[in-house]
């Protein structure tokens, strides 16, 4: 290659005129000197690299300057650790909808529970307290309810809340055109099922009626002792006919939304955040915080980092990863609450070898439930019975306890001594990390205590649901969360006609027990009926093996007071205070 640098230096070629003045402007002289002294092409390369690198450097420098200015502004503002009267929480995801007739998930219900109140209200000790209804009468042996409404109830637009709003809401819930997934909640109401399924067209024949603006009457087709709990659940909240009809699908957007609870929807940036402001017209007095900011941070570690950086005041399971629980277990900010959500291992009793109750019992007795909290480390409560301890009918002795010796004896009795000849059975589970840990532990327990091999099969969530419903494998892992605080929500699951009973097991005796319990108004007798059914389910027939109850793990900043978790996992922010240390 010719010695171009020298040429440029000596001659006045076009190229040299082009390059050098520019280089002189930008590159320091010492550098140019060094470059010109060095040998030809290499120095030209260096100029090029220098320019390119300089371009790059400038980009980074600009970025650095912007970042520094921004962070400086942020720092000089001396951001306080909390905003007095403002609660910042993480919802995790976008609520799929705030129309409480079509909403089905806990995120939506968490928001709706703070925007609306119904006839009654759940307390944290699982009873139903009066709310819109100041009192109610149970008539005709539990087949007729008469609710007397308060006269000081107001919607956020100032109009009074009346029994007609309840009548409209309940009829809309049952209207097939609404396609409400929770419509079955009111199937105990006279003619409700027929109307919802289109067999009956006239809504006036439903057992729902506003007697006058302050009296709401409900007639049931059979006594249902759990019915009062349904009046506190989101789907039974009142609704404004004029608003729904006027705004159609957009009636839940902040500019149109009319509610009657402690908060009102101020702002909703979809997929990002919601802001709930205090409702000064709330009958029970406005809440103590003026604003609740609900962010939708899907990634737990990010939400946790936001909490650590004082950008969130309160976080729950949605914002916790297991290592975070471990790290903060001894922190005064950490709290753990039991939930009414039970996990279980289910058998398809129509598939061998689980057609034999002895085999199912052996499996139930071979699993040490205490391993689950040790693996999942979120304070899970081991369970052997299906009814959780907080509910009537619970007995610690209903289920089969861990007893590997007895388990092996039962398996031998079933024809598989020491697990010999036991066919390799499939255990299906949905593809989730925590579930994988529990089924792996189950597999290990069964191998160690019974000598049987279980094959683990995982499927994506919806594929798993479709498989279990269509033709469940011999074993599968499942869970169930209570909709209301009554044993019925758990026990009804394994009746013959329940759409969620994928075990293929049913018994006329069990169905009879549940039916009797549903109509029994004597609480003691009712609890006893459920206890008998629980024994049948977990000790005699064993179509399922309850494993553990889930818990809610929360962290609350010291400047937040009054956060309490309901076992139904509902979060009420009405009584929360921020900043009153």
């Amino acid at each position: 290659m010719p010695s171009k640098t020298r040429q440029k230096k000596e001659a006045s070629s076009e190229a040299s005129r082009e390059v050098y003045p520019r280089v002189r402007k930008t590159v320091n002289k010492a550098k140019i000197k060094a470059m010109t002294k060095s040998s030809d092409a290499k120095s030209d390369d260096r100029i090029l690299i220098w320019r390119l690198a300089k371009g790059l450097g400038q980009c980074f420098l600009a970025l650095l300057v912007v970042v520094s200015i921004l962070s400086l502004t942020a720092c000089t503002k001396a951001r306080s650790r909390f905003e007095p009267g403002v609660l910042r929480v993480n919802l995790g995801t976008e609520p799929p909808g705030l129309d409480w007739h079509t909403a089905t998930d806990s995120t939506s219900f968490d928001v709706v529970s703070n925007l609306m109140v119904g006839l009654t209200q759940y307390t944290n000790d699982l009873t139903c307290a009066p709310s819109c209804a100041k009192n109610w009468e149970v008539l005709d042996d539990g087949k007729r309810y008469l609710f007397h409404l308060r006269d000081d109830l107001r919607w956020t637009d100032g109009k009074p809340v009346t029994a007609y709003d309840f009548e409209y809401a309940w009829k809309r819930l049952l209207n097939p055109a609404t396609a409400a997934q929770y419509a079955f909640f009111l199937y105990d109401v006279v003619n409700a099922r027929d109307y919802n399924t289109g067999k009956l067209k006239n809504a006036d024949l439903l057992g729902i009626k506003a007697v006058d603006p302050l009296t709401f009457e409900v007639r049931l087709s059979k006594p249902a002792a759990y019915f009062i709990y349904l009046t506190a659940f989101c789907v039974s909240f009142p609704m404004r006919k004029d608003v729904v009809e006027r705004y159609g699908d957009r009636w839940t957007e902040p500019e149109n939304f009319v509610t009657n609870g402690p908060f009102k929807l101020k702002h909703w940036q979809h997929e990002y955040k919601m802001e709930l402001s205090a409702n000064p017209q709330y009958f029970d007095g406005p809440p103590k915080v003026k604003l609740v900011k609900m962010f939708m941070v899907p990634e737990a570690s990010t939400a946790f980092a936001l909490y650590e950086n004082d950008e969130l005041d309160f976080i729950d399971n949605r914002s916790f990863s297991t290592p975070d629980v471990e790290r903060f277990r001894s922190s005064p900010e950490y709290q753990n609450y039991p939930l009414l959500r039970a996990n279980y291992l289910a058998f398809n009793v129509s598939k061998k070898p689980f057609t034999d109750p002895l085999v199912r019992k052996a499996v139930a007795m071979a699993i040490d439930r205490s391993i689950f909290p040790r693996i999942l480390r979120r304070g899970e409560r081991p369970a052997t019975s299906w009814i959780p301890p907080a509910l009537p009918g619970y007995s610690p002795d209903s289920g089969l306890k861990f007893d590997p010796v007895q388990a092996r004896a039962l398996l031998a009795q079933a024809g598989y001594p020491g697990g010999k000849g036991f066919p390799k059975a499939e255990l299906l589970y949905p593809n989730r990390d925590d579930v994988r840990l529990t089924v792996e532990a189950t597999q290990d327990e069964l191998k160690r205590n019974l000598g049987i091999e279980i094959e683990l099969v995982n499927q994506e969530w919806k594929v798993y649901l479709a498989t279990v419903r269509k033709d469940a494998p011999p074993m599968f892992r499942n869970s169930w969360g209570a909709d209301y605080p009554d044993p019925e929500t758990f026990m009804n699951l394994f009746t013959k006609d329940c759409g969620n009973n994928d075990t293929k097991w049913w018994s006329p005796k069990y169905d009879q027990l549940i039916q009797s319990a549903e109509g029994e108004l004597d609480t003691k007798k009712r609890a006893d009926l459920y206890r008998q059914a629980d024994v049948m389910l977990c000790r005699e027939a064993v179509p399922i093996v309850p494993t553990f109850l889930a818990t809610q793990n929360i962290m609350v900043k010291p400047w937040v007071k009054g956060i309490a978790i309901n076992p139904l996992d509902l979060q009420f922010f009405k009584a929360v205070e921020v900043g009153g240390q």
Partner: protein
Amino acid sequence: MIALILKRILLAIPVLLVVASLTFVLVRIVPGGPFDADKNLPPEIIANLNAKYHLDKPVPEQYFLYLGRLAQGDLGVSYKYVNRTVNDILSDAFPVSLQLGTISLSLAVLVGVPLGAIAAVCRGRKEDVIAMFLSTLGISVPGFVIGATLIFVFAIELRVLPVGLWESPWHVVLPAVTLAFSPAAYLARLTRASVLEIVEKDWVRTARSKGLSQWSTVTKHILRNSLIPVVTVLGPLTAIVITGSFVVEYIYAIPGMGRFFITAVMNRDYDLILGTTLVFAVLLIIANTFVDVAYQILDPRMRIED
């Protein structure tokens, strides 16, 4: 050039029809439906839901209904986000992804191309090794590791930038850098390979032999020609980056549309799956049209061919 653009627009119609049809069929083949949940619903309720969303009709009828709506620009309704249309969801989310994607892409080009050029010019020297080490790192380290590391260093340890959320301009910095990392690395490698190839060409030798400086040779002759493959990948890359990244949006809690590519499928939200796929296809077509126009500007031979 206008003829080329018109031709592309006309060609886009059958392409989109094929994309919509294939996606329509594929989402219905996957097991599980939009209303499957851990709490199984009574058959009557499922029937009500299917009737509301026309899922009770035969699949061919559903298909033609869908195409009819599509022709009017209606992407349908979401089964998961009740009362929200796919048009609503995407028009809320797309501007966010577009904003973040444009910044990231600019960053990627500004860093990646010069880095690749430096590496090629200094082939085999320490500059090359450093540049290629950085680009290999950028390609092989996944976005969630980069994101988590940046959050840890800048947000938690140094506390100079926010952990996440989408509130102010400084909330854009970390997600933009995370999103730019991989494309920048990819562009750097591509530029390097391309420059190395062009350097050997006859016209480069001619340029040098007539006494052109290294700077002019590289910028006017080498880089311009070696940008052709870079521009080629920039088409799909643009569509990918501006439609959002699931990982980046997830870890920084950004309300973009990238998340729907995953969550819509998980929820079997049929119309939303189709909507996101079609938006992606349209952007890909637009980006590729730009690429073709850019070809003509960069390489005069292409104009003759066309």
